[in-house]
């Protein structure tokens, strides 16, 4: 029986991730990327792949370590703590979950390439300002044995550099998922200059040709394979957001102990103590929802919607509270670009929207709980 406590292996993984990231990818690294006009550091991702993290969900025979979604969440949490900018969620979680479901030799070699860092993936779903996969309008018209794809995607996280794209489009028989190399003729990528300084792209598809081989799963039945992958991504993103909240909170707590006003540390004022304690409570409660989502995805993936949406909803509101309190309790310095708190605030805002916001996920919970 699995419990809501980290296993020894998971705890070891999380500890070593923390040590590595504090050293190799502190918030400073994100700032440096931003200042040099880049959104992603391939060398960092390569080192991460060498440690096996990209294979956390990949079976051993495809070069992975197969530790499961709870473990993936622990890695995502640690990356969130230091705001590491990596394609972990898009490639190692979302793409891998799809490929695993598909199975077969091709999927196996694709997973091996993800594990080694040779290939990166991005998921192209959004077409408007809110997450709504079922409302996809991008068209995939039949053309002989294949399809012709036309339409525009936006907010494709990691889409600016990914080698391959997972694209959701509508055929006459329904939503279909395509896997395409990002340099296929007719694909144009435009970087979106996002507030969180991470990679995201607008992608235009103009009469892009796809063959039957480019279809993942069944034509017209994308959701069967996409839904578990979205849920895996949402759970891992929630974990990343919980790390973000914890990182912001650690900074705030440190500041409360160190900053003096009226002749005493500001952390001795009860008004601030109680707000800090409340924030800590919210973080603890969210941590349970996240670990639970990982456990359910590992144990009972076909019934994970409630657990996953609960985790993403909670993570979204907790991260938002953590950054708002973080900036406020830092006073003026919290508003400066020179200080890192602003990076946390911006990442929280972007993560809140990616893969469904609070309202989207709370509505899923409500539907499953009869409200």
């Amino acid at each position, binding site marked *: *029986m699995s419990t*809501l406590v980290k296993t020894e292996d998971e705890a070891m993984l999380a500890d070593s991730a923390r040590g590595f990231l504090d050293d190799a990818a502190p918030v400073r690294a994100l700032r440096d990327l931003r200042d040099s006009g880049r959104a992603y550091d391939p060398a960092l991702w390569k080192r991460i792949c060498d440690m096996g993290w990209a294979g956390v969900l990949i079976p051993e025979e495809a070069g992975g370590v197969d530790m499961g979604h709870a473990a993936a969440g622990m890695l995502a949490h640690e990356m969130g703590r230091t705001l590491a900018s990596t394609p972990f969620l898009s490639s190692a979680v979302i793409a891998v979950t799809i490929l695993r479901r598909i199975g077969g030799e091709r999927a196996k070699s694709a997973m091996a390439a993800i594990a080694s860092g040779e290939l990166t993936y991005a998921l192209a779903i959004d077409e408007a300002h809110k997450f709504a996969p079922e409302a996809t309008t991008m068209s995939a018209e039949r053309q002989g044995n294949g399809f012709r794809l036309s339409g525009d995607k936006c907010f494709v996280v990691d889409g600016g550099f990914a080698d391959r794209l997972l694209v959701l489009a509508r055929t006459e028989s329904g939503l279909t998922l395509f896997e395409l190399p990002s340099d296929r003729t007719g694909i144009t990528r435009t970087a979106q200059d996002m507030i969180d300084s991470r990679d995201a792209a607008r992608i235009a598809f103009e009469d892009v040709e796809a063959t039957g081989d480019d279809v993942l799963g069944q034509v017209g039945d994308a959701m069967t394979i996409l839904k578990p992958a979205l849920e895996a991504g949402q759970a891992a993103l929630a974990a990343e957001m919980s790390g973000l909240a914890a990182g912001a909170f650690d900074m705030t707590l440190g500041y409360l*102990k160190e900053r003096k006003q009226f002749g005493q540390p500001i952390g001795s004022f009860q008004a601030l*103590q109680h707000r*800090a*304690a409340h924030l800590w*409570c919210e973080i603890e*409660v969210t941590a349970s929802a996240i670990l639970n989502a990982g456990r359910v995805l590992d144990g009972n993936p076909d019934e994970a919607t409630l657990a996953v949406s609960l985790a993403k909803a*909670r993570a979204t509101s907790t991260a938002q509270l953590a950054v708002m309190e973080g900036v406020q309790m830092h006073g003026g310095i919290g508003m400066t670009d020179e200080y890192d708190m602003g990076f946390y605030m911006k990442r929280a805002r972007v993560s809140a929207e990616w893969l469904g916001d609070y309202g989207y996920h709370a509505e899923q919970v409500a539907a499953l709980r009869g*409200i």
Partner: protein
Amino acid sequence: MQGEDSLKAFRAEMRSWLEENCPQQMRDGRITDDAICWGGKNWTFSSESQRLWLERASARGLTVPRWPTEYGGAGLSRAEEKVFLEEMERINARPPLKSFGISMLGPALLQFGTPEQNRHYLPQIARGEIRWCQGYSEPGAGSDLASVQTRGEDKGDHWLVNGQKIWTSYADKADWIFALVRTDRDVPKHKGISFLLIDMGDPGVTTRPIRLISGASPFCETFFDNVKVPKGQIVGEENRGWDVAKYLLTHEREMISSGGTGLSGGRALGAVMAQMAGEPSAQDPTLRAAAIRCEVDALATGLTIERYKDMAEAGKGVGNASAMLKYMGTELNKRRHELIMSACGSDALEWDGPVGNRAADWLRTKANSIEGGTSEVMLTILARRVLGLPGS
């Protein structure tokens, strides 16, 4: 960790045991004060089924599933207890017995009691034969609990106790009281308190009920006038009662915290909203949004209670962090009942209206963030002891 197979077998065993032993009338999930047996010498069973259910459950150790069998428990592991509770929930069974003895004193005795004390008191608690109340608060000692003034003078073979307690829930129905008594006035306040067990039938103990805003009057004032308490009735060491008191408080807080999670209280919120579906209240988007947010928080808080139990079981004690459960759980329960009142509208405003006594339940929840330590006190504990923020 137990194997899946042995747990499966255990589940089957519990399922058939419940099938045979839990009376049909006890399978409606009601958890109001009279629906559940609280035990004690003064208890009058509300039905023969209630009596039978207590008798059968306690004979099998299942009123206190995790206590050792020698003290009247079933000696279950946490995993087994979870299975048992799930099986209870499956048939919507009421708990056979609820009491402060089970949720508060028992755990403290298991930790601090002598083997003689445990053999004497615990089985009686498990069988629901004696009912306990808690004598902590005094008129001048609420949040500042260590300021208690009720005095215990050392008279050789006994203490002579004089003083007053207040807010002693169910003191008028209890057989015994566990009380904090000052046995040394010349040391810092935490260091001169002893934890005494006192028979409410002893000469010099009197109680007076206090009526609550919910219409009920479980509250009492309790007075001690030259009460002789034998030396064998101290738990823990003399003047070290504060340790026992604090340990017991963590259990009290855990008990109070689970109210609003929807795990112990069933699906109250979802169910009420569903009941109201089609009526204007369910279509009010503001109300529905608040209800959804409350449900999200309730599910996550319920999981946190589970996680903390799992951590305790794994030997990763959570200590002061459990003040989080008390704070989050009780604030949530208050929100939940506000929403239920709004959803039910004027139907909920009568003492015994078309939807039952929602108003009394709602009013009762207002105490959740006061009893067992207020929310403000919980936040201070967390800020100082868990987050390490400085005192002012």
